[in-house]
C-alpha cells in the first residue's frame, strides 16, 4: 500500500472519529505553520497482530477541555485534567480501531494496547516521515493536530 493511500485512510479515520466522538470538526492540511504553538499532549496506542506498531494523536493542551467537555456533554463546566487526558487516550483508541481495519484484511485480529498519554513539547514540527511512519496534520479551531501511524514493517 502506498504512503499516500495510508495517509488518506489515517486522515479519514481521524477526521471522522473526532467529529463523531467529540463533535470536533477538522480538515487536513499539508503542513502546519511553524511558530506560536502551545504545549501539547500526546496519546499513543500500540497494536499487535497482522500489523504491529503504534498510532498517536497530539493536540495542543488548550484543545483538551473542549475535547473532553464535548465527549462528556459538560455544559460550561471544565473537565478535570484526568478526564482531559482520558478523553484524548480514548480518542486515540477509537482512531486506531477505525484505521487498522482499512489497512488489513477483514479477518485480521489486532490487540490494541492501553493508551499512554503524556504532555510533550510540540514535537509535531519534526516534519520528516521515516520509512514506516506516516503523519497527517489536521487543522482544528483550537489549533493543529498531528496524527501519526508507525508500523514495525512496511505494508
Amino acid at each position: 500500500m502506498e504512503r499516500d493511500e495510508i495517509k488518506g485512510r489515517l486522515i479519514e479515520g481521524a477526521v471522522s472519529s473526532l467529529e463523531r466522538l467529540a463533535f470536533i470538526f477538522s480538515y487536513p492540511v499539508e503542513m502546519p505553520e511553524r511558530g506560536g504553538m502551545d504545549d501539547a499532549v500526546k496519546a499513543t496506542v500500540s497494536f499487535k497482530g497482522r500489523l504491529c506498531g503504534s498510532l498517536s494523536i497530539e493536540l495542543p493542551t488548550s484543545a483538551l477541555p473542549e475535547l473532553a467537555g464535548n465527549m462528556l456533554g459538560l455544559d460550561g463546566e471544565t473537565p478535570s485534567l484526568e478526564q482531559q487526558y482520558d478523553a484524548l487516550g480514548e480518542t486515540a483508541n477509537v482512531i486506531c480501531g477505525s484505521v487498522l481495519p482499512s489497512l488489513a484484511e477483514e479477518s485480521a485480529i489486532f490487540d490494541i494496547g492501553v493508551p499512554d498519554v503524556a504532555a510533550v513539547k510540540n514535537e509535531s514540527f519534526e516534519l520528516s516521515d521515516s520509512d514506516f511512519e506516516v503523519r497527517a496534520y489536521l487543522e482544528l479551531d483550537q489549533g493543529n493536530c498531528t496524527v501519526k501511524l508507525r508500523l514495525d514493517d512496511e505494508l
Partner: protein
Amino acid sequence: MAINILVVDDSSVMRSMIIKTMNMSGLALGEISQAGNGKEALGLLKDKWVDLVVADINMPVMNGEEMINRIMEDPELKTIPILVVSTEASQARIERLMSKGASFIKKPFSPELIRNTIVKILGIEDNGEGRDKR
C-alpha cells in the same frame, strides 16, 4: 421493572458517555455500577445482580474477552446478557464474541444505536418501560 446495568471500561470518560447515553434513552434504569476492568467487574458481579453487562474489550488487568469467558463459565452469571462496546477492529474477533452470545457495538456509537440494541437484547417494550423477561 428497572434495569440494573454494569458498565465496564478502563476509560472513565467512556463510562460516563455510555451512562449519559443510557440516562437519556428513556429506558427505565435502576442501579448503574461501574468497573475499570474485567477483574473488577467479576468482583462486583459476586455481590450485585445486574440485568446487563456493557463492556469494552481492550482493558488492562483483565480484558473483556476473558471476562466474558469467565461469566460464561459461571452457572450463576452465564445468563446475563452482554453488550460489547469497543473499538474492536477485527471481524473475526467480533464474530467470536457474538458466538458466545454477546452483542456488539463499535465505538464511536450513536445514542439511538445503544438504546435500540439494549431494547433488543433485553426484549423490553419500546416505550421506555423496562420489563424483565427472564
